[in-house]
């Protein structure tokens, strides 16, 4: 059936499709190539050393990993319960017209560019955190080491709050789709056994959609790990390990944004490539896991923009 131009056409669109796979492979290759010198130089010590000092050509990524993980976890702690709450509201409680209004409004949060979140963070969120938010937290929860220390405004906590706002729409949209994919027979069965509305949601809907909800959280985590501009603008950019949430810190993405254009030494640039490679591999793994968990419940879904 296919001849001449048709074959050429199929080959062309095939190439376009393969470019999607090619880009991912090329990324791994280029980043690995760039990261090779530092990995040959420092080995595993690169991940466990806690001093990052470009001036002395000493590169240990531990403080940066610490900042990345802590800011992302903080964002998840804030965003996941909120996201689930909204998803339950949208999928189970809201009337159809309200769902059509609120859903897109929450998704608009994802459309705001990262740099604008950063701008807002610098001029609105940080002054507020410094003057009223953090002092209150220190007074109330100061018995925990996490909530001690001076309230700078900038720091891990501000980054976590902004990240939470930024990943909220992704967690919400995905968990809503997971909840909507729960078969109605599940709900009916629970109701028939005499469950109240809330018990029905808890027993029949949330438990059924467990893995999908976890997948949504993982996808949010992947996004939080890689978010760059907003974090760079509010986190303080100091690669230290401190117990306090209010201290300035550094994440993988913000480190790259700060130092990459100015890196001059061979080893410095290679260390930054290694951080990029690590970020790439970690987000790749988390996203792949998340996709598998969500796809099991929601077979076909448009990708979250």
């Amino acid at each position, binding site marked *: *059936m296919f001849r001449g*131009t*048709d074959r050429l*056409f199929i080959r062309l*669109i*095939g*190439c*376009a*499709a393969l*470019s*999607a*796979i090619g*880009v*991912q492979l090329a*990324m791994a290759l*280029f*980043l690995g190539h760039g990261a090779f010198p530092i990995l040959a130089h420092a080995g595993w010590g690169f991940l466990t050393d806690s001093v990052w000092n470009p001036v002395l050509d000493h590169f240990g990524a531990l403080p940066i990993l610490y900042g990345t993980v802590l800011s992302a976890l903080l964002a998840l702690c804030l965003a996941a319960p*909120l996201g689930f709450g*909204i998803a*339950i*509201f949208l*999928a189970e409680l809201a009337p159809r017209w309200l*769902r059509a209004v*609120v859903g897109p*409004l*929450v998704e*608009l*949060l994802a*459309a*705001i*560019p*990262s*740099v*604008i979140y950063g*701008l*807002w963070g*610098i*001029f609105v969120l940080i002054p507020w955190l410094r003057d009223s938010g953090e002092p209150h937290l220190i007074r109330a929860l100061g018995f925990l080491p996490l909530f001690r220390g001076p309230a700078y405004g900038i720091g891990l906590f501000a980054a976590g709050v902004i990240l939470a706002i930024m990943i909220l729409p992704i967690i*919400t*949209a995905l968990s*809503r*789709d997971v909840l*909507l994919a729960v078969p109605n027979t599940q709900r009916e069965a629970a109701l028939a056994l005499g469950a109240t509305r*809330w018990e029905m949601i808890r027993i029949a809907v949330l438990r059924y959609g467990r893995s999908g909800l976890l997948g949504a959280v993982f*996808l949010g985590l992947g*996004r939080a*790990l*890689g*978010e*760059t*501009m907003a974090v760079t603008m509010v986190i303080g950019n100091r690669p230290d390990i401190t117990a306090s949430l209010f201290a300035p810190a550094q994440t993988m*993405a913000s480190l*790259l944004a700060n130092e*990459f*254009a100015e890196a001059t030494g061979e080893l410095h640039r290679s260390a930054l490539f290694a951080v990029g490679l690590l*970020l790439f591999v970690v*987000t790749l793994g988390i996203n792949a896991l*998340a996709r598998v968990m969500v796809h099991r419940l929601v077979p076909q879904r*448009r*990708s979250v923009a």
Partner: protein
Amino acid sequence: MILCCVGCTLIALVPLLLITTQLVQRGWEAFTPALFTALPRPVGESGGGMANAFVGSGLILLLAAGIGIPLGIGGGLFLAHTRSTRLAAWVRFAADLQSGTPSIVTGIFVYALCVTTLGHFSGLAGGIALGLIMIPLVLRTTEEMLRLVPREVREGAIALGIPYWRVMCSVVLRAARSGIVTGILLSLARIAGETAPLLFTTLGNPNWSFDPLQPLAALPLQIFTYAISPFAAWQRQAWAGALALIGFVLLLNLGTRICFRTSSSAGDKP
């Protein structure tokens, strides 16, 4: 518990409200015609605008669209052509992973690919980086939209003896046109605000710049530079630039959502 869920929803809408009102309030002051027509002035002189950044962003978006749209639509056509083969599944998976890859990682990749080979920062490199971010977004929406075109349309066209490539391009693509255009516009809105990959590909430029082979100015980069600067005049311009950027992004988002109500019905209960 029900109240709790309603509360969550209200809390989520607070930041949206806060950010948009603050942007309008603080950005309005410097939101003058000069913002779009004048060049940045040196520190200490008042006035000036971000015209170079608007032009630069436009050029970079054009470059990105030139890469992202053909590759995305081509890939989408391929997935519609070979629906459920193993290769199609891999392409789909790779596209999903690419849309989850942090944009700064894409930036480093393009730096290694393009900036080191050319020897200097350039608008072209920025366009490539944004184009790569655009591909999976266009690809997935194209595929979804082509999936909605009934088999009969394709079969009917083939039965008329039209070559397969014309069936796909003139009949099937055209039937899905409005949805694909929506996807393209949304992906443009998405990359218009991307800053991280531009930091070390495009670099930014405080003067008029039209040559894509040289460093170009870009709106998000200029907002970033101005926002972290200590000068009040620059900070005001950052707010005004942000207002212009978010106006563009939200207009595209809301406009396409209202014009083509495809996305809101997709998540409804069956």
